[in-house]
């Protein structure tokens, strides 16, 4: 082995270590899920709430929503996944899988921003709304429209309802709704700003 060969090996090792170091240390800028399509093939970071988790034999997937869109983050691991409802920051490479944009990531690139709160009943929130204000909450209840044609999340036992504001019209029914409770001074009541919802 001459000096050229040794130099090649050193360059190869240093280059690989540099790339690995960049992957480990570099924090890509946070991208809104609605803008992900402009970053196909790039490494980005997204923030959002975990809406669903799936565990398979060879990998797992988490579906994240940020109020604008949803994206599936695919992991080649079956390690512990963040619980539903928790807020996470995920770093990964944007791929197009069967037409839809996905994020290829690793468990170590998923960071918990805010832990999930357990699902609350509508009555719990109505009893102490100030306690849950400005924090992510997951509430289980009946999505329905009131007399003023506004969406609300109703208690199944008729103990009241929380007004809910959805980005897009939801499907009425028994659902698990994740969002943030905010006080609306003009209406003098709390409104649930819904980030995402699923049928419970």
């Amino acid at each position: 082995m001459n000096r050229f060969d040794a130099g090649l090996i050193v360059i190869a090792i240093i280059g690989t270590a540099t790339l690995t170091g960049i992957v480990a240390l570099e924090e890509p800028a946070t991208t809104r899920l609605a803008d992900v399509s402009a970053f196909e093939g790039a490494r980005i970071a997204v923030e959002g709430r975990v809406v669903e988790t799936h565990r398979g034999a060879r990998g797992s997937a988490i579906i994240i929503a940020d109020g604008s869109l949803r994206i599936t983050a695919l992991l080649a691991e079956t390690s512990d996944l963040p619980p539903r409802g928790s807020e996470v920051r995920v770093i990964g490479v944007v791929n197009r899988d069967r037409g839809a944009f996905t994020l290829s990531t690793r468990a170590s690139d998923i960071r918990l921003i805010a832990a999930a709160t357990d699902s609350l009943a509508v009555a719990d929130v109505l009893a102490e709304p100030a306690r849950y204000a400005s924090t992510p909450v997951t509430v289980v209840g009946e999505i329905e429209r009131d007399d003023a044609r506004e969406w609300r999340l109703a208690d199944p036992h008729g103990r009241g309802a929380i007004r809910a504001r959805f980005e897009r019209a939801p499907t009425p029914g028994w659902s698990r709704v994740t969002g943030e409770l905010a006080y609306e001074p003009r209406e003098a009541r709390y409104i649930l700003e819904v980030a995402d919802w699923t049928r419970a």
Partner: protein
Amino acid sequence: MTLFAALAGALVGAATGLIPGVHVNTFAAFLVAAGGVPGVAPAPVASALIAAGVSSAFAGIASGTFLGAPPEESAAAALPAHTLLARGQGVSAVSLGASGALAGALVALALALPLRALLEGPIFLAARLTAALPFVMLALVVWMVASERRRIPYRRFFVVDPFASRVLTGRVSAVSEGGAFSLEDGRRVRDPLALTAATPGAIVRVRVRAEWREGRLSRALGSATAAAVFLLAGAYGSAALSLGASNPFGLPSSALLAIFAGLFGVPGLVALFARSRPPPAQVLFASPPPPGAFALAARGAFASSVLALLPGLSASHAAALASETKRDGDPERALILLGACTGGGAVFGLLALPLLGRARSGAAVAAHALDPVAPWSTLFPDGHVVAFLLALIVGALVGWWAARTAARILARLANRMRARVLATVALVWLVAVTSILGGALSLVVLATGAAIGMIPPRVGVRRSHLMGVVLLPLLVRLWS
């Protein structure tokens, strides 16, 4: 109308395959937009997409051979193709690869219905293969590394050479026949011309040069070197794939261009600078396929069809493994086999949609979105599936023609230019395309890949160990 659309799509697909860095999915995005325009019939647009998906993979064989930036599907085929290119048989290399791909595509079409029964039901081979996959892959990779034939000399000895600069001084402990003697500190010196009158106990001062020879561990050292190359390429692939590629203009991008151009393209071009003699002129006519070519193609098509349908595997993994199972030192036969993997994988990636209801390629998804493809489960499919199959065949034929035509044009170009000028132009092109499509960081990926790609020929192990770039991340994924 459908036939003309397929023909037009195949021609555009072939163009995307010939230009490194331009993916057929970019074209697909434009066509999907066109398909949504009122008044445009979706069926012909879908046919164009299908044909483009196939012809792009075929045409990539020519760009991988001559331009040094193979697409993912034909990366493994770049190795034997470059061997033939260095002998002035680049046109033959492309012709064999494209013919293998065409045969592989036709075999994949013929095998479609039987394979469906084999993989999905009633035999359900896909589920069994998926379960066994981690063990099969590990065994194949271990075999690939262990079967490295390079023997590395590691036993150092000295040869008396009056013109050498190194001087050795010591007391002679033993003298053996043929002029060899040992010093008290254990160093062995050969003196074939008997220039030193060494006798036991005498103190000698001789000019020597160091030489190495093989020993019992030479074979193991060869395998260890192969394993080191495999692991280095794998670590590089894991990092580069995790890093992705960020297109400065917001266009779709992939780290694979910089990775494969670095590993397989740049080393070959740099080697052109190092040659003391100019490379042989490129022969413009293709040599005929070797005997048993169709059987080889059938094997490649079968392997890639099965592997390309398993979750997490693509035709590039199939090709990487196929290049290991067929290693008799004959690049012509290897090209037929790997070409069939490319063709079979491309066709089956698209056929998975009507056959299994699962889309394995972007072009198939886009086509399905425009004009939903009906399932294919009977010997005589309906008109929709027939149009789909027709588009596949048109794409394969156009891709085969485009690859061979492009090879002749590129070979003529190579003959007109001096090798170093050609290498410089190609290098500048690769660097420019990589940085434009993948951003500045892609240049680090390209340079690192080039350094890794130059190691195997320097240390004397097979370049196929570089396919660790895709195999190691897959192994990690399967075993994690």
